[in-house]
């Protein structure tokens, strides 16, 4: 049994590049100036609103579990990510995931493998915006290219392993945040994944805006995600409650737990898959 996320990915042991990225992330977290304070209110594939020199760097730990008859699989992604505001309307991002997978039969681990999986270079362009006092509405376009990591069988080709194109509408305010996006996820070179559509609607509230004055912040909300094969073979919808908290000026935690609420003709390897996300990041 294999996860759709990793089909076609050639897993290899962690290499020095991954360790280096993590070390840089940790080092940056230690030296970032104390006035940094932020939120990542945008859901789905879109990058956080870091225009004009804003910088975010952090780690994501994601656990996805699937159970099919007496078999199950547990995928744990540990990723380092960074996003930087190149200009008043442009953001660039890098996402480097590391995957550890355990496949089980009747509760016993029968296979375990781990390694780097395709990393993503991301670019987001703001196409339109309307700013008010304490509010913003914007339309963005997002693109992402997934490249084969060093050590994979396809390395060093520059032909993308996957790619994505998205459009999004984002509202941010002092009390609430809402976003919606629609993406096409294409399969690239040496990929076994099917092209998919991905839709995301998210709404979060800031229950106590007064926390902002103390350099703290809190968001509560939920996101609804649609995933469907472009050829119509299957569809699924997941719902995830979201909690984002800023306990200190530097630090943000984000937790979400997505569970399927509707599925149609979903392949066994992703049927009933749930995912738990924990994200830790700093932003300035």
């Amino acid at each position, binding site marked *: 049994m294999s996860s759709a996320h990793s089909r076609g990915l050639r897993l290899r042991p962690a290499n020095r590049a991954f360790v280096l990225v993590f070390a840089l992330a940790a080092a940056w977290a230690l030296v970032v100036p104390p006035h940094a*304070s*932020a939120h990542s209110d945008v859901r789905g594939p879109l990058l956080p609103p870091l225009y004009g*020199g804003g910088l975010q760097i952090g780690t994501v730990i994601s656990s996805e579990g699937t159970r099919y008859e007496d078999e199950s699989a547990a995928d744990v992604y540990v990723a380092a990510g960074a996003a930087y505001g190149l200009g008043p309307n442009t953001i660039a991002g890098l996402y480097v995931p590391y995957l550890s997978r355990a496949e089980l039969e009747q509760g016993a681990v029968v296979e375990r493998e781990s390694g780097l999986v395709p990393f993503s270079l991301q670019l987001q362009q703001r196409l339109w915006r309307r700013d008010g*006092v304490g509010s913003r509405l914007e339309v963005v376009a997002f693109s992402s290219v997934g490249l084969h990591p060093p050590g994979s069988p396809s390395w060093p080709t520059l032909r993308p392993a996957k790619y994505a194109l998205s459009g999004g509408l984002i509202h941010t305010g002092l009390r609430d945040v809402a976003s919606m996006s629609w993406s096409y996820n294409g399969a690239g070179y040496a990929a076994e994944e099917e092209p998919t559509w991905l839709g995301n609607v998210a709404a979060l509230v800031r229950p106590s805006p007064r926390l902002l004055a103390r350099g703290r912040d809190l968001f509560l909300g939920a996101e609804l995600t649609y995933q469907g094969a472009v050829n119509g073979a299957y569809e699924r919808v997941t719902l995830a409650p979201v909690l984002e908290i800023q306990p200190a000026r530097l630090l943000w935690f984000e937790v979400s737990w997505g569970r399927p609420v509707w599925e149609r003709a979903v392949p066994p390897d992703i049927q009933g898959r749930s995912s738990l996300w924990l994200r830790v990041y700093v932003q300035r």
Partner: protein
Amino acid sequence: MVARVRPALIAAWAAIAFLVGSGCGPFGLPASAGAEILSARVAVRGMTCNICAGTVERRLKRVACIVTASVDLEHGLAQLSPRPGQHFDGRRVLKAIHDAGFTPGDIYVVARGQLVTRNGIAYLELVPGDLVILSGATGPPSLPDLPGAGQTIRVSGRLADPSGDSRASVGICVERAALATAP
């Protein structure tokens, strides 16, 4: 003694600066130890979080004519302390906000200088020879409503948006004018 500019005169007159000498570019107001821009405030739209405020503050502090910048997130305002001895370049302030990814609004300033008149037009002399026109949104302020020529006055108002000729593009749309207590 406090003199108010009549509201009817504050509306349609395009702000024009009459800048004598050098060192005063478009939308830039000269300042010196004796006559200066005392403070400035600019509206910033689109800020919704602390990171927004932090980004705007950092950008504004990089502007050469700004000593300190403090952002009020709730009201969408940035309070600026101009650097003494340097001309206050409003264009750079607006550009800094724009480059940070936000929408700048009007700049309001408090300035102190000597009132002079030429051809019936009132100017604020910030440094000897450098004149900034005092205007209203609809026309020139009424001289009888302003303190007498030669007096040091304090004015507050909106920096007029420059257009066209860089040598004739700066003004303060006066909201209030008062005799300064200090020379």
